[in-house]
């Protein structure tokens, strides 16, 4: 039967399809596309977010961004955080996926347990971990006599990114684990058994069979972790809120301020809406480029069975 003919004639089907599209397309344009375009316009003005008056100033905001130490530092910190975070989250998640798809007893309990941190919002998580980093770990360090543990990780500019990676891995690895678990379960057990009979050890089976066949899951997981690390805001705000002050380009800057927090502070704390908006546009362009590169690299590595 022709695709277009069923469901009581062509015209009614067209109307149904149109009505099915209306809510999402409407929301999409009103919530994302129109503000996005307005935002690009704002980035060329000197609007402060409070006064109605605004003048078009051309590229002045964009020029100001690239000489601002705070923004450049936030940018580099975000890149560093993203790099560590993507690696940490995916390695931990992959290992956990291997664990919970093995024959371990109570694997469903472990699966649920690893996923639970994901159900709590970043603000609550950040507060819990702030207490752990600032009170519990130093107390442990003192009790055990370990010097490196007795000062708080989040008040030291060198270790604060590590603290954020720890918290984010704890929160996000369970979610990524679920993607890997679904992918591992989709691989036929016979392939693995055949390799096992041929004498391949467990690690060889994982490396030569599992990982190549899971390339699709790696593409999705890397995309999600990459974009989420880049956009990290809530944990950053609740855990360190910019964190200790450090020197960068001979100016004091916030050591753990990531891009999203920097943009937010520029716009609301310092009332420079237009400047914040210009930063956001740069942020968007970087994110698009980075994720396009990642997806195309990963896609080229995917294999078909």
């Amino acid at each position, binding site marked *: 039967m022709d695709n277009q003919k069923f469901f009581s004639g062509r015209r009614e089907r067209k109307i149904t399809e149109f009505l099915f599209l209306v809510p999402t397309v409407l*929301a999409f344009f009103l919530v994302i596309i129109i503000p996005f375009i307005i935002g690009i316009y704002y980035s060329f003005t000197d609007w402060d977010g409070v006064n109605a008056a605004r003048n078009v100033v051309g590229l002045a905001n964009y020029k100001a961004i690239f000489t601002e130490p705070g923004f450049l530092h936030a940018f580099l910190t975000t890149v560093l955080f993203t790099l560590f975070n993507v690696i940490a989250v995916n390695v931990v998640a992959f290992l956990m996926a*291997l664990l919970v798809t093995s024959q371990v007893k109570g694997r469903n309990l472990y699966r649920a347990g690893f996923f639970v941190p994901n159900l709590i919002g970043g603000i609550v998580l950040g507060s819990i971990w702030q207490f752990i980093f600032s009170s519990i770990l130093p107390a442990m360090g003192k009790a055990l006599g370990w010097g490196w543990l007795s000062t708080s990780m989040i008040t030291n500019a060198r270790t604060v990114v590590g603290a954020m990676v720890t918290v984010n891995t704890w929160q996000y690895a369970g979610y990524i684990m679920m993607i890997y678990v679904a992918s591992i379960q989709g691989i036929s057990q016979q392939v693995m058994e055949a390799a096992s009979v041929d004498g391949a050890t467990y690690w060889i089976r994982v490396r030569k069979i599992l990982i190549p066949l899971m390339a699709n899951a790696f593409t999705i997981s890397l995309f999600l972790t990459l974009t989420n690390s880049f956009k990290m805001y809530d944990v950053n705000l609740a855990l360190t809120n910019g964190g200790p002050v450090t020197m960068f380009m001979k100016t004091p800057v916030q050591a753990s301020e990531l891009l999203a927090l920097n943009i937010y502070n520029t716009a609301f704390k310092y009332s420079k809406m237009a400047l914040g908006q210009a930063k956001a546009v740069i942020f968007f362009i970087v994110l698009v480029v980075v994720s396009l590169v990642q997806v195309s690299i990963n896609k080229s590595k995917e294999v078909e069975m």
Partner: protein
Amino acid sequence: MHQNALDIVGQDKARQKRLSILAEIGCILLFILFMMPFFIVLLNSARTNAEIINSAVGMPENWANFKENVVAVWNNPTFNFLKALKDSVIITILSLAVISVCSAMTAWVLVRNKTKWSTALFMMFVAAMVIPFQVVMFPLITWFKNLGDFLHIPLLRSHGGLVFAYLGFGESMTIFIFHGFVKNIPLEIEEAADIDGCSLPAAAAGVRHRAGAQRPVDLE
């Protein structure tokens, strides 16, 4: 030759056993590590301020403090916990319902109606996943204010406006997931439903709860 093969299987069995014990230990350790923060929160919720300041880690002196703390939070007029909880529940239920129903409908159309328009629309939804919230955050507030004034619908500081905004932000990901689901539903099922006199397209059959909860964060 035969003997040799058996040997390998025997060795593999022993290795498998070692691996499974390692896996077991790894799971237990990770599980403890993952649950520790929750455990600490639970313990500290039953302790007094003085206890926590004195020592960060420790058992509560008196579990009766737990009830006292909970009651104190519940009744505190500055937190207004009950109202916040109620708002969160309402917003979560409404936005989950709206997002999953609307996205499922759209995903069905985008899969079944193969034209260049639907492909372009799908690509647009997927591309929007990359747009960071910070880019649209400031303009959204002024734009929603103006639009709300124009339409005489309060879009800011209202549940409806927030749910609508959540639909905009959440639908891209949800449509993407549903798109995969609907593609796996055979077309024959829909044709059969039509012949049997089913009036509404059976895409609803594909409606599953979207993985991951919508987190209630106030847009203000």
